[in-house]
């Protein structure tokens, strides 16, 4: 029973990571129907920028977090300009290839700027690194921070899409770009902000998770795969679905590794993607319609 409790608690806290990554993927997909394959690197950029501000320059945590998110926001704008707007006329396949290109460029820049300081960079946790006791199990405090942050970001985004004009414009553009254009919306600008908001969420996730994932130029890829699995399971267009998908993925992964064998842990996301695409094509919370991944 103790083992089950630990696996569930860890699954939920780890799943919150995946949900947070999935949120950024969903935001971009919801508006543009494009999976940004450089999303993991935007996560990395956020973490690295925060490392520069907080660890190297010694700025306080909150300004470091805000600067990192702002930096990721700008990189998101550049990604949209380079990998979306300029190649969209050649089709979505070209956009996907272009986002892969951006991913490699960002990793290369990171190796140049932050390489040469050892293999992994450790980021001090926001809270005590000592585990906290809940009943008869222990949980890392930083994991709880990520869990709470994921829920806050999810709630914030849900409000953004439901209550703000910008959020509604994004949804309108995603639903029918031509109609949105006829209504006078500047859809180019909406796409740009969509990429930027997705990148900002990735940047925030990068800063929050850095104490647990550590920082290195390639940190984003595995988390991107897991975030994508969570997003697909949740329905790829659903903000709550991303978080629920992340939590489910985290729990399944932990239970499989604990009760089957540790070697299956990394296979789980791929099985989840295959399962979701085969048996739940709209995911848990997605809407029926054409899907382009």
């Amino acid at each position, binding site marked *: 029973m103790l*083992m089950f409790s*630990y*696996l569930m608690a*860890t699954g939920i806290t*780890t799943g919150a*990571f995946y949900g947070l990554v999935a949120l950024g993927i969903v935001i971009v997909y919801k508006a543009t129907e494009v999976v940004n394959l450089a999303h993991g690197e935007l996560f990395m950029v956020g973490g690295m920028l925060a490392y520069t501000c907080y660890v190297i320059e010694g700025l306080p945590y909150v300004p470091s977090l805000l600067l990192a998110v702002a930096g990721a926001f700008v990189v998101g704008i550049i990604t949209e300009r380079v990998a979306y707007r300029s190649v969209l006329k050649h089709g979505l396949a070209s956009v996907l290839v272009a986002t892969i290109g951006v991913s490699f460029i960002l990793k*290369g820049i990171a*190796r140049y700027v932050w*390489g*040469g*300081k*050892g*293999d*992994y960079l*450790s980021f*001090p*946790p926001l809270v005590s*690194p*000592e*585990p906290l006791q809940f009943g008869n199990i*222990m*949980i*890392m405090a930083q994991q709880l921070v990520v869990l709470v942050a994921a829920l806050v970001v999810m709630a914030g985004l849900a409000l953004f899409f439901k209550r703000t004009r910008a959020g509604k414009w994004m949804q309108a553009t995603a639903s029918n770009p031509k109609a949105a254009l006829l209504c006078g919306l500047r859809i180019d600008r909406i796409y740009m902000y969509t990429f930027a908001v997705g990148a900002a969420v990735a940047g925030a996730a990068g800063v929050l998770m850095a*104490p*647990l*994932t*550590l920082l*290195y*130029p*390639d*940190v984003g*890829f*595995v*988390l991107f795969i897991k975030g994508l699995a969570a997003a697909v399971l949740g329905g790829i267009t659903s903000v709550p679905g991303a978080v629920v998908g992340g939590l489910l993925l985290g729990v399944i992964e*932990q239970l499989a*590794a*604990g009760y089957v*064998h*540790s*070697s299956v*842990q*990394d296979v789980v996301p791929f099985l989840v993607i295959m399962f979701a695409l085969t048996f739940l094509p709209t995911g848990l919370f997605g809407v029926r319609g054409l899907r382009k991944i």
Partner: protein
Amino acid sequence: MKQLASTMGVALAFACMATAGAQAADVPGVTDTEIKVGTFGPLTGPVYIYGKLTMNGVEVYFNKLNEKGGIHGRKLVLVREDDLCKPEGAIAAVKKLIYEDKVFAIIGGGCSNSTLAARPEIEKAGVPFHVFAAVADGIVDPPAANIYTTQLTATIESHAQIQWALDRGAKKLAIVSQHDAWGRSRYEPMLQDLKRRGLQVVADEEVTVDQNDGTAQALRLKSSGADAVMLLGYPKAAAVLIRDSIKIGYKPIWIGQTAIQDLPALQGLIGIDGSLANFVSITTIPGHPDNPQYAEWRKLLKNTFPNDELSVFNLMGIAAAEVFGKVVDAAGKELTREKFLAAYNTIDNFKSSIYPGPITCKGQHKCNQSPAFVKLDNNNVVFAGTVVLK
């Protein structure tokens, strides 16, 4: 008569110079003023540290030699090739170094799998090859006449990990390993050695390089009752596993290997003070790069690579380059590949300024056979002991 003697003297001098020039021209990569040395390993990609940083260390040592006039008047010039830590990349890299750049010798090999793949080409070409970081035994075993390593090999390290556990009275052994090519090069010799000793592990768990959580592995280890865990993983996997083991209150003897020998860095990754109280690791470098004994290298590294902080990988490159330079020196002024390879036999109980044990290439191609262990004591890296392999 005086004029005749003078003319003959000048003619003799010209003849000598022509002979020396011809000798240098016959040897690939060697001129009267320089020796071109190739290197390959990952300069980019996820594990670029094993190539780029180690090469930076080699270059720092070469620069030091060159500032003193080089070896026998020849400066060492390093030519780098990126193998991306991939077999096909390493084969292409060594072909370019050997046939296009025409290097005299190669000091390199950052990744085991790719270096293994490059071995046939290197062996066929006969170019001297000094391994600086890769640990797979197959690179030097069976021996090739032109290949030597000063890195501990995977088999020596795996046997030493088991020996350390048994010497400390451990009864229930467990393995946690990455199952990639690097991990398997250690995991399989470890299983063979356990079998030879008639031992079985109580848990055999897997981690990945990018592991973000190790709770499941820690729980399985704890439930197996393992009192010593041999860790065959990279720093991130090790850090995550130890962190999550502390979380569940599991504290076995942890026995690491050279990939996780930078203990202060590992503790920094774990983020919990005292987390390495039960941890030892095999080391190539018997002290932390921040220790005063490496002050000179820190300074020289900064001069050449201002963005680098001295790391274990830099020191591995410096250590290998020190032995390489010693061999070049022993080969003499009339340098040929044959003389260079023969000079490895003069390296006998060489006290390197960095490797913890003596280096002996005389009669063997695995020149480093001294697995030493380090531990963390009050945040200082200290010598923990050694083992006699049985």
